[in-house]
């Protein structure tokens, strides 16, 4: 029996014990962040002239972009290929991507020394710079994500604009504006949806080009001219697992049944994509003969092995199994492993692989760096929770829907 899904606002108390923990972590991060703004980056981080980039770039930015890939992969599946059965997943993925990219932008702006010049790349161009390309693409894509989310806002508030006090007189014009937006957007939304996918493929790959220029400063296990391709493939590979990961966490948190029917169908597509990524990664390793570095026991070789075995091989095997696809717990574990693998890959590329020619000790993130990163992630989760309670994002089965009702492109 086919049942129909409708995006619905979550009805639950916002504050739970988990939420309180997140708020505390967020506050802790903000305290260290204040230190960064008052006394400079060096006062809260372990960065120095030998290690200019740390986990704020490796996790907040690089991994953040990768883990927000669910946005463009589900948009491609649901909207570009018109696989209607996955529409229920598009909105949560879109929200994750939108919040994810917002925090990538925040992560960048706290990591750069002159945050008040963050707009400089808009008018000062350097077409040779991979970072310039990433920066511009991320800025445009973030705008596109916000536009793609607008229909959710109009759907929520059309006919329900109810501002209090002196703002009340703006209720009617606001409603009109929303209706106008809604009509206009539905006609041009496809432009943004395609643009979102194109922009994503561009900057997901260019993020890989970033470290190519570091040349011999990057460990040979990761340094390869095909880095952009590996970054793109891994971003595509982590897209659906990330959707499964968060959708199951959200379901648990709001006391819903995980949509196993859709999720296992989605899970079936992961193995081939993960296989392609693994093939390129291993192929690259054999062509450049870097497997020799795996024979010694170093941080680099161990991290590489964990990344490949735990992050790709094991989940690949799991996603090939019918039992895993049927079991919520196993599916969740498999998806989490892919997410972990790509997260580790980005940390490896930007932090572990980086070996400066002169160093006075190695880099390990400081308490401040970890606190800020954890704080940002906590705020992101809190905002996600708030957003799904305010806006109709998460789909729940709706028996009142007749078979005639169907989705249009609404983001």
């Amino acid at each position, binding site marked *: 029996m086919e049942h129909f899904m409708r995006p619905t606002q979550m009805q639950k108390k916002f504050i739970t014990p988990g939420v309180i923990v997140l708020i505390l972590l967020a506050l802790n991060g903000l305290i260290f962040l204040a230190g*960064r703004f*008052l*006394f*400079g*980056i*060096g*006062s809260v*981080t372990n*960065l120095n*002239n*030998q290690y*200019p*980039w740390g986990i704020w770039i490796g996790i907040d930015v690089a991994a953040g972009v990768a883990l927000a890939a669910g946005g463009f992969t589900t948009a*491609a599946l649901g*909207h*570009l*290929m*018109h696989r*209607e059965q996955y529409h229920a997943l598009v909105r949560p993925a879109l929200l994750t991507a939108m919040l994810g990219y917002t925090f990538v932008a925040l992560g*960048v702006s706290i*990591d*750069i*020394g*002159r945050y008040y*010049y*963050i707009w*400089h*790349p808009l008018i*000062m*161009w*350097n*077409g*040779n*710079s*991979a*970072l*310039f*390309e990433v920066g511009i693409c991320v800025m445009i894509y973030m705008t596109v994500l916000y536009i793609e989310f607008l229909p959710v806002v109009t759907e929520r508030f059309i006919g329900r604009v109810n501002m209090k006090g002196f703002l009340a007189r703006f209720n009617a014009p606001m409603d009109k504006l929303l209706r106008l937006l809604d009509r206009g957007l539905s*006609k*041009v939304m*496809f*432009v943004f*949806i*395609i*643009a979102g996918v*194109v922009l994503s*493929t561009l900057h997901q*790959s*260019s993020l890989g*080009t970033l470290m*190519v*220029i*570091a*040349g*011999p*400063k990057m460990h040979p296990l990761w340094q390869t*001219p095909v880095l*952009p391709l590996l970054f793109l493939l891994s971003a595509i590979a982590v897209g659906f697992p990330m959707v499964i990961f968060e959708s199951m966490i959200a379901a648990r948190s709001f006391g819903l049944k995980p949509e196993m029917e859709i999720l296992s169908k989605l899970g079936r597509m992961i193995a081939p994509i993960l296989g392609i990524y693994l093939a390129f990664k291993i192929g690259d390793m054999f062509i450049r003969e870097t497997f020799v570095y795996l024979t010694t026991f170093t941080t680099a070789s161990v991290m590489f092995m964990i990344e490949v075995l735990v992050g790709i091989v094991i989940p690949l095997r799991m996603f090939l199994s019918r039992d895993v696809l049927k079991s919520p717990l196993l599916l969740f574990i498999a998806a989490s492993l892919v997410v972990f693998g790509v997260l580790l890959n980005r940390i490896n590329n930007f932090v572990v692989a980086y070996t400066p*020619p*002169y160093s006075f000790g190695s880099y390990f993130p400081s308490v401040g760096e970890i606190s800020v990163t954890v704080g940002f992630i906590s705020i992101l989760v809190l905002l996600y929770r708030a957003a799904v309670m305010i806006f109709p994002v998460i789909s729940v089965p709706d028996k009142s829907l007749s078979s005639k009702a169907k989705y249009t492109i609404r983001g």
Partner: protein
Amino acid sequence: MTNLDRRSFFKTTALLGAGLTGLSVSEAKAGPKNILSPDRMGVLVDTTVCIGCRNCEWACKTAHNLPTPPIESYEDRSVFEKMRRPDETALTVVNRYDNPKKPELPYTVKVQCMHCDHPACVSACIVGAFSKEENGAVIWDTGKCIGCRYCMAACPFQIPAFEFHRAIGPKIIKCDFCSERRKDGKMPACAEICPVEALTYGPREELVRIARDRVKRFPERYVEQIYGEYEVGGTGWLYLTGRDAAELQFPKLGRNPAPGVSESIQHGIFAYFVPPVSLYALLGALMWITKNRTDEEEA
């Protein structure tokens, strides 16, 4: 999808394509100044001549208005016990290494920005704050820099330093080859003060000739390599050494310019915006075809 929608679809796609192609024209021009003049200047550092007096360190700080200890304090040779690197307080430092041939005459090596012919920092900088000047200097523009430190990640010699402890307006600090001083006809401060002429300032091409000549005349004094002649496509500063450069902690680098691979990837992906626009068109077509198919199935 109605006919009107279809028409607007094509129109918007075409418009967007045209817009992006228009952008590509200005894109081709965008970029920092990167001049490789045949007359560019350089410095030949003869590490076998250097006596480690560190007057260059003092002169450099003085010329760049950095906090400078009195010159007498530079006679203290205990600083050589630790390897030092240029940082936000010093654009150049001198390090000492053993001389196996004559232990009583250790080698001392001045370190600063190499002023690459094909600088990684110029290629990497997100806002084009670095430029390679006609006079050979690779300089940094404080008015553009956003403090992202990509130059530090990119530099093969690990030269740019950053003021990590400054909350507002932290600067990237590195040797600027006295670009401003030289415009007034002066020599770089370090080359000017060097009492033993370990630093020879002149057109790079001539310096290469001088260096080769010295190696030929005193083969027992030098190793055969001129460090910087070919490293990462050639550098403005060149080194003559009595020991293998790697033993003096010079990074082992290939002959290809540091930005080579990443720039060709970058330009390959972008090639006048043809690949992204084609991808856009392709996805648009895919979207339209699958949409029609779903429509037909439902009709």
